[in-house]
C-alpha cells in the first residue's frame, strides 16, 4: 500500500530538483536522482528516464539489423567468381520460404502486441489510482485483474515455437544454414530476432515476478511500460524482417 520504501533515511535536499513528475524545462532541469522535493520517489521522472534509456538502447539493435540488411542486399547483387571458368556469375538462390507458417507467426506476434498494450494500459490505470486506493477505506470496486501479461508471454512463446517449426520446414525443403548465401541470411535474421524476442519474454517474466514481490505499483508500472515498448519494437522489427525476406528474395 505505502509507496515509500521503509529503509530510507531521508536527507532533504536543499534545492529543488526535477520535481514531482512535472515536465522539465527545456534547458537544464531533471537533474534529480528520481526523488521529489519531499524525498518520496518521483516515478514520473523515473518513467521518463527509463523510456529515454530504452530509446537509446534500441539504437544499437537497429544498427545490428541495418548491418545485416546491408550485407544481405549487397550479397544478393554481388557476382561470384566461378573458379572453374574464371568468370563472374550471379549465384543467388531464392529461398523457398514457408510463408503461410511465417504469416501465422506474424499474426500471433501482432496479437501479442495488442495484449501487451492492454497490459500496459491496465497497470497505468492502476498506478494512476494508487494514491487513491492507499487511503484507508477507499475502494474502487473490483477491477478484473485480467492476465494480459500472462497471455502475452504465452503468445510470445507461441511465436518462438512457430519460428522453430518454420526452421524445421526450411530444413525439410533442403535449406540449412550453410546451404546458400540466401538461406544463411534467412536463418541469421530470424535467429537474431528470436534471441532478442526471448530477451523480451524474460523481461515479461520479470514483470510478473515483481508483482509477486509486492513492489509498489508505480515501480511495477515502469517495468511493464518499458517491456511493452520493447515488445512493440520487436513486432515491428519482425514485420520488417519478414517483408525484407519476402520482397527482396
Amino acid at each position, binding site marked *: 500500500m505505502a509507496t515509500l520504501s521503509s529503509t530510507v533515511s531521508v536527507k532533504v535536499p536543499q534545492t529543488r530538483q526535477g520535481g514531482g513528475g512535472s515536465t522539465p524545462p527545456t534547458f537544464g532541469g531533471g537533474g534529480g536522482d528520481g526523488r521529489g522535493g519531499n524525498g518520496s520517489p518521483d516515478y514520473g521522472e523515473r518513467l521518463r528516464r527509463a523510456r529515454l534509456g530504452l530509446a537509446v538502447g534500441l539504437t*544499437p539493435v537497429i544498427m545490428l539489423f541495418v548491418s545485416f540488411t546491408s550485407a544481405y542486399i549487397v550479397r544478393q547483387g554481388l557476382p561470384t567468381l566461378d573458379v572453374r571458368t574464371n568468370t563472374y556469375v550471379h549465384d543467388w538462390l531464392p529461398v523457398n520460404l514457408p510463408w503461410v507458417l511465417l504469416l501465422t507467426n506474424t499474426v500471433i506476434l501482432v496479437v501479442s502486441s495488442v495484449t501487451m498494450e492492454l497490459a500496459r494500459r491496465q497497470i497505468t490505470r492502476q498506478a494512476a489510482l494508487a494514491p487513491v486506493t492507499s487511503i484507508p477505506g477507499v475502494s474502487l470496486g473490483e477491477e478484473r485483474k485480467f492476465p494480459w501479461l500472462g497471455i502475452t508471454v504465452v503468445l510470445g512463446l507461441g511465436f518462438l515455437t512457430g519460428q522453430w517449426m518454420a526452421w524445421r520446414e526450411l530444413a525439410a525443403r533442403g535449406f540449412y*544454414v550453410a546451404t546458400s548465401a540466401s538461406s544463411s541470411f534467412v536463418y541469421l535474421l530470424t535467429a537474431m530476432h528470436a534471441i532478442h524476442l526471448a530477451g523480451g519474454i524474460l523481461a515479461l517474466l520479470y514483470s510478473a515476478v515483481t508483482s509477486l514481490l509486492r513492489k509498489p505499483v508505480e515501480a511495477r508500472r*515502469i517495468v511493464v511500460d518499458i517491456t511493452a515498448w520493447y515488445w512493440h519494437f520487436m513486432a515491428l522489427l519482425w514485420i520488417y524482417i519478414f517483408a525484407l525476406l519476402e520482397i527482396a528474395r
Partner: protein
Amino acid sequence: MASTEIVHAHAAPQGFIRKYIFSLDHKIIGLQYYFLALIAVFLGMGLSLLMRIHLIWPTASLPIFGDIKPETYLMFVTMHGTIMVFFVLTTAPQGGFGNYFLPIQIGAPDMAFPTLNMLSFWTTFVAFVVLIAAFFVGAPLHGWTGYAPLSAVPSSGPGEGLGADLWITSIALFCAASLMGALNFITTTLDMRAKGMSMMRMPLTCWAWFITAILGLLAFGVLAAGGILLLMDRNLGTSFFVPGGLNFTGQTSFPPGGFSPSTDLVKHNGGSPLLWQHLFWFFGHPEVYIAIVPGMGVASQLLSTFSRKPIFGYRAMVYAMLAIGILGFVVWGHHMFMSGMSPYSAFAFSIMTMAIGVPSAIKTFNWIGTIYKGRVRFHTPMLFAIGFVSLFVSGGLSGPFLAQPVLDIPLHDTAYVPGHFHLIMGVAAIFGIFAATYYWFPKMFGHMMNETLGRWHFFITLVGTYSIFMPMHYLGMAGQPRRYSQLTEVAYLHPLIPLNRFITYAAIVTIAGQFIFLFNLFWSMAKGKKAADNPWEATTLEWTTATPPPHDNFGGRTPVVNHGPYEYSVPGAPRDYVMQSDPATAQVH
C-alpha cells in the same frame, strides 16, 4: 534495465563486497575501469617491447619466452592491438574518467542506471579474461583488424582455431559492455543535469563523453554484426566472408599433419572478404574517434584551467566535436583504398576524410588560442595537455597523406600507418589519460601526486614517444611494410635496420619511464601531500565538493549552476576564477 528501486544514493552500501566489488557507485566503477585499463596497458606495453626486441634480434632466445617464432610475433601484434584499442583506449578515458566525473560535473548524484553501470564493468572484465585465455590456447595471428579469410578459416595459421573464437567472443562481450555504458552516459547527460546546467554550460569533458557515447552506440552494433557473421563462417560453414575455391597447401608446416582439400573449405562459396572490411571499418573508424575525443575534452578542460582563461571558442569546440563525430561515420573507406574497392568510392571517401581534418584543425587552433594571452601554470596535468596538442598536430598532419588515395598507394600497410595512428592513439590519447590522472588524482584520492616525478615522466615520455613513432614515417616512405616479424628476408629493408634499432632503444627507455608514473600513482595514494578540495583553483562542479566526494557526490546538497564552465580571470571578479555554482552576478555568462 531501469532501476526502479529507491536509488542507493540514500544510504551508502555496507560491507566490502557491496562497497568495492559489486558497487553501484559510479565513482567506484570508474576506478574499477581505470585499474583494469592500467593492467591492460602494462600488458600491452610488454607485448610491444617483445615485438620491438624480436624485430631487431630475431634469432635471440628470450628468458621465459624462448625463441619467438614468426607466428608468435604475430600473436603479439594481434593481442597488443586488441588490448590497447579496446581495454585501454576505450576503457580508461570513457569508462574510467567518464564514469567517475560525468555525473559530478553535471551535478547529478549518480548515473541514470547504476545497476546497468555495474554490469557494464563486469562484462568488460569478463571480456578481458576471455581475451587473455586466448594466450593459453594459442592467440590468433590475424591482427586486431582480423581480415577474412585469414580470420575466417581455422587452417589459415596457428592460433586461428580456438584462439580466434575466443578473440571474437571477447570482442562481442566488449561490444555489449560498451553499449550498456553508452546507454548510461547518454541518458544521464540528457536527463540528469542540475538546475542551470544547460547543455551549453557543460564542461567540454562532458560534451566529449556524451559524443563518444553516441559514437559507440552507433558503431558497436555493427562490429557485433560482423563478429556474429565471422563466428558463423568459422563454425557453421556459412560463406559471408569466405569465397569458394580456396586452397591452403602453401603452408607446408601448418596445420600439423598437412592440409586436406576434403575439409569444409570446399563447401564455402561466394563470400566477400571485402564485406568484413566494410563492417569492421564502419565500426573501426568511429572507434578511433571514441579513443581520442575524451582526450580532446580533457585537453580543453586543462588548457583553460591552467591558462586561467576561458576556452577559446567554446561553441566552436562543441560543433567541431559534433562534426568529427558525424563525419567519422562516412570515412571508413579510407582504410580500404587498396582493397579492391571501387576507385570512385575511394574518391568519395577521400574527400570526406580531408573534410574531417577541418574540425580537427579548428580544435587545434582553439587550444593554441586558449594559451595565447593566458597565464600558464606548469603543473603536471598542464604539461601533458600541452603535449597532447603537440602530438595531435604531429599525428594529425600525417593523416592528409594517407587520406589521398594516390599517396596511399606507396604508404598503405607500411610503417607510416602505425607511425600516424600511434602518435594520435598511442600517444596523444594516452597523454589525455595521464593528464586526467594527474588532474583528478587529488579529487579521487585526497592526495597530490609528486610534481618532480610527474615532470620526469612527462619529458621522458614526450621525447621517447616522438623518438619511437616519428621515425616510423620515414620507414614507411622507404617502403617498410607493416606486421613483418623480421626485416631479414626482403633486401631493400636491410638499410632500414639501424633506424629500427634506434626505435627499439627508444621504446625500452620510454617503457622504463612509465614505471616512474606507476610508482608515483601508488606511492602518492598513501604518502602524497594532502590535497585541498580545489587544489587547481578550477571552476567545474567536481571541485565544489569534498575530497574524495561523498557517496551521493554533493553531501545531500544539489548544486545550482549559474555560470559557464570556464570563467577564469573575469574582469572585476574577486578571484581569477568563478565556480559554476557561485552565486549569479551580472558580469559573467
